[in-house]
């Protein structure tokens, strides 16, 4: 192996290592910027980086040029989160409630296929936690009366929606919808998928482009029908 090949391999691995951290930005890291530039202009280097990622059970997605790369697990990869990584010691009912809230969040942020946009779209969506909680509370109550939910949700999931409908939307303590959504958003923020900013006295949660990648995979996964059904409700609420 020549010196140039060794260096290219080193830089390809270095790029994957930097891209794994979703919070890394090209503005803050000059090395990332340089490697990214090489990735975009050198086809051989690009293939090498993808091969290195594949060898690590990872897959590279190109975001907009000024954003960088997104790295996701391939199926059954070793980097997948466990339930303990998310929140330890959950009982079955609580686990299902958090799962449904995660799905409702994705559907609320991207209520339509058009809203989810393209992979290299650098525009972001921002939401207010209060509006999210209000929508989720109303939507969960409406699901009790909706017959079509049986098409997309098993009996366990329907009982999860009932549990959500019974939660107080706001208030002190942990037994509220607001607390649970905040927990989810803070976890996603800690892992680089969301950012929290204050604007005009309002707290905005911004879905980064990396979250778009994850949401696209969610909408193609096991619970795609449930997400589409939830998205229709979110879009209908918007239009009304």
């Amino acid at each position: 192996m020549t010196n140039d090949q060794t260096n290219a391999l080193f830089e390809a691995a270095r790029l994957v290592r930097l891209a794994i951290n979703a919070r890394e930005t090209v503005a803050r890291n000059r090395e990332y910027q340089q490697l990214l530039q090489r990735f975009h202009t050198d086809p051989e280097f690009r293939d090498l980086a993808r091969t290195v990622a594949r060898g690590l059970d990872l897959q590279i997605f190109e975001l907009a040029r000024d954003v960088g790369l997104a790295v996701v697990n391939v199926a059954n990869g070793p980097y997948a989160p466990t339930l303990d990584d998310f929140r330890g010691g959950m009982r079955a009912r609580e686990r299902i409630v958090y799962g449904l809230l995660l799905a409702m969040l994705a559907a609320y942020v991207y209520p339509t296929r058009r809203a989810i946009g393209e992979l290299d779209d650098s525009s972001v969506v921002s939401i207010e936690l209060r509006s999210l909680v209000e929508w989720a509370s109303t939507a969960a109550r409406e699901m009790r009366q909706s017959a079509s939910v049986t098409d997309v949700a098993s009996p366990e999931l329907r009982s999860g929606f009932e549990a959500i409908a019974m939660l107080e939307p706001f208030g002190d303590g942990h037994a509220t919808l607001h607390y649970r959504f905040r927990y989810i958003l803070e976890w996603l923020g800690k892992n680089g998928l969301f950012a929290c900013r204050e604007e005009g006295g309002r707290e905005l949660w911004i879905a980064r482009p990396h979250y778009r990648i994850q949401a696209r995979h969610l909408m193609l996964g096991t619970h795609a029908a449930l997400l589409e059904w939830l998205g229709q409700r979110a879009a209908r609420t918007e239009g009304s």
Partner: protein
Amino acid sequence: MNRRAKNLALMKPFFDLEANKALADARPYDMHLLCSVLMEAIIADMSGSSGGAPYSVILREVSKIALKVNPQATESELDRLTSHLIDHLSSQRGRDHFEITYQVVTPEGDVTRLSHAYRLLEQKLSPEDELVYVATPEAIHIYLSGLGHELEAEQAANDAILEHYLSRGKHKEAGEAAEMARKRSVELRARLRSWLIAAERSFEEIQYVGHVLPQLTEMQQHIRARGAIEQRQIEELQSRAIQLPPGDEGRTNLISARKAIEEASHEHTRLLTDLQQCSRTLLDFQSRQRFRLGDSPAMPEPVTEFLHPVLALNLQDLDRGLPRLLPLLLPPRLPMLPDLPVLLDALLADIRVVMDRSELEPLSEVTEDLPVAKRFTPELCATVDEFLQNFGAAYTFSSLLEAADKKFGRHSPEMAYLTVMVPQWFENEVADGRFARPACRQFETAGRFGDELEITMSRTA
């Protein structure tokens, strides 16, 4: 005409803001004016380093006008007004799109309906990871068209200049040459990095004098030559581009060529910076490695050269050194990547255990007799027989059980064998020699109860 019809339809969100301003408690304000101020602020900041306008800039510009209309407006009212404008023009902050339906006249003279989905404002994260707002091409087009130029008159005058320039094709060739030079600079920067990596390992690898120094000189000449050419080309293209109206194809081509040359120029600047740093770093490596032995340092003696000095540290020094030592002691961990599909599957996994049973499982075609395990082994039977031989010729069942309880234990297999075997002596097989007759009373002993038996052993057994 069709284009103007579409442009009028694109402006619907601005008209809606004005029409519904009472709902947003914004009656004193002209929403058209505020939108114009907002668009001005955003478009002006789009050329800056952040690539868009932050909320603070938009708020400042909108507040200037709003306070002239309503001097009593409070800070929270101004915030609410600005947020309302942004929420609407960004289609609920990116969650939605505007969609218009409009009619156009086809080349055949028919009227057909078209639809178009678009946004006016979009949100992006700046390089500093802050939320900024940008205007979409539709919004910029609407805003600039509203400046009221006499586009037709200027167009006629500039057509002649454009035709002359395009026929020469100079700007296209200049753009292509700049792109080649830019790629060359990218390649040269990669080469500089490779030298630095190799030199850090061993300076002898890079052949500094014979190979690297001449190439560093060549790079300097490349940067100097391109710098002069590109500066002249940028000025020429800029002066020609501003003479053409926005949206004109010729202007677009000129701007593209100018951007390519500017990017190349930036790349050369970055190359120059890397070149200067690389030269200094390589000289530094040369002086540091000149007297190096070339072999890796020997491992320390674990006890005397590592453990003893560490144990001799006081708590303060250990506290400082421990964060660096600890990662060396622990194995590397795989990072956790937020894989939402996997997480959602785990959270929504069915709580019931699924048993994959079928009552209609086919019977096996091959059967075999399984050996049945014997409850009482031959050895156990022999032990109990010996006990009975030595017990006597005549006794009751209860006394036998009491004796067996003492010898073998109440729950022993020998006891179980006795309680099964002895009642069978009712069979009264003569060859057996054992006779058991009911004693017409009950017994309860050794954890058992039942009909008492009187047992005799004949001499022939």
